[in-house]
């Protein structure tokens, strides 16, 4: 289903962050949101992930305004979205338990209790989907390790697997590789492309232009509280229509 921000206005106190932001993400496409630090990329992703209700405008999933529906239905929508943050933010548990988290919270409480009891006596193996997701980021063999023992890059890959494991329709990635070395960055970018091939819509907020060029189908440029331009990646980088886009890409625009 399509995820849409329609004329979104939002701010903190009297300071506006967005003044009429609109964008659409389709299944099976990668949309990169580029813009300087502090422009509100993370805030926009949090709105798309249904963390916060926008002050004005609408967030729509499959054409339905998600803040106009019941809390139960909004939870259903929320559970069709995965998110990875700039920091891995793993739980103090094993890699497998981290990867299974999204699957676990979707189960009825009775099943969860049974699973927890089975875990206490050591009678569980990883859920297939979680192990597959770990395989996607090349960390299947570390499933039983404590998450705290992982390197920063490995932890971020587990965070990606954790979001991928429950097979979301949309993945929102907030600067997921900004603290990673080139090898871990490459692994994650491959995983993003694999998610796209599985029909998952991906929104990636990044200030890394090269990353946007490498993996995005379309690019949205967030500047001055608005999406000033959105289009095919190649077109945005080769022939930007807005002069501010060109200046930002060329590094002439200093914020």
């Amino acid at each position, binding site marked *: 289903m399509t995820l849409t921000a329609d004329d979104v206005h939002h701010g903190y106190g009297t300071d506006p962050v967005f003044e009429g932001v609109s964008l659409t993400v389709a299944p099976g496409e990668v949309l990169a949101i580029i813009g300087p630090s502090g422009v509100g990329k993370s805030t926009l992703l949090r709105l798309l992930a249904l*963390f916060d209700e926008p002050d004005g405008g609408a967030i729509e999933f499959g054409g339905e305004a998600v803040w106009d529906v019941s809390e139960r239905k909004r939870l259903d929508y929320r559970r069709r979205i995965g998110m990875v*943050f700039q*920091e891995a933010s793993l739980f103090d548990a094993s890699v497998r338990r981290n990867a299974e988290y999204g699957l676990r919270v979707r189960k009825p409480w009775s099943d969860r209790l049974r699973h927890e009891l089975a875990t206490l006596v050591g009678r569980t193996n990883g859920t297939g989907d979680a192990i597959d997701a770990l395989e996607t980021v090349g960390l299947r063999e570390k499933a039983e390790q404590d998450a705290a023992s992982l390197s920063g890059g490995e932890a971020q890959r587990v965070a990606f697997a954790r979001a991928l494991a429950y097979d979301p329709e949309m993945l929102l990635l907030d600067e997921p590789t900004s603290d990673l070395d080139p090898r871990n960055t490459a692994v994650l970018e491959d995983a993003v492309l694999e998610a796209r091939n599985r029909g998952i819509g991906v929104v990636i907020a990044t200030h890394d232009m090269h990353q946007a060029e490498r993996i995005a189908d379309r690019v949205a440029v967030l500047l001055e509280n608005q999406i000033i331009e959105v289009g095919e990646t190649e077109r945005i980088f080769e022939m930007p229509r807005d002069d501010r886009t060109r200046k930002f890409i060329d590094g002439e625009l200093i914020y």
Partner: protein
Amino acid sequence: MPLELSVLSPLVVDFPFEWNYIRSIIRVSLYVSITAVVLSTLFSIPVALLVGFKDFRGKTLLTSIINTGMGFPSVVVGLVVLFTVSNEGPLGSWDLVFTPEAMIMSQFVLAAPVITGVSLAAVSSVEQNVRDAAFAMGGTRADVALVTIKEARYGIATAVLAGFGRAISEVGSVLIVGGNIAGSDGTSVTRTLTTAIQLEARQGRFETAMILGAILVVLVLIVNAIVVRLGGDTGGNR
């Protein structure tokens, strides 16, 4: 040469209590303190989560009350509980004066601020981005609260131990509301290890007071070990 028992006699403590009596004191002590701590924990953790993560009017005042409660004099708590359960008090019809249940009430009042205060510090230290991750993966408010409790489990285990320590080592309030009563059959009704120690020491039976003290210390050690094991479990299955 056969060993004469009289040779060993200086090493054998002349134990003045019946085992039934000792067992009944231990049973009353554990019943009162464990029940009070379990109830306090069930009350305190939701309060700690609420105070830790919700903004509301009076939050600073409530935090100050919790912190003040951590050092509240136990005899004052005993007096207040005694007035509450006495015939003229609001719970007078429940007939709780000099019962283990009244002692549970006073220990609840003493342990709850300690467990709440230490748990509050523990849950407040759980990073916002970990709670955000639980929410983003589709967690409900209850799921996020559970993740917070799991992340703060070492601190919460410490809180429970601190609360248990305050409850089981407490003398003043249980003496006031319980009355340190032993029944006509020689077993404890409201006599705990601490009040029994106080009685024995006052009557000059220091050896027996020491033995009861040793039992109390061993009990605290055992409970510590159990809680640390449960709260501080490590390994891959969390």
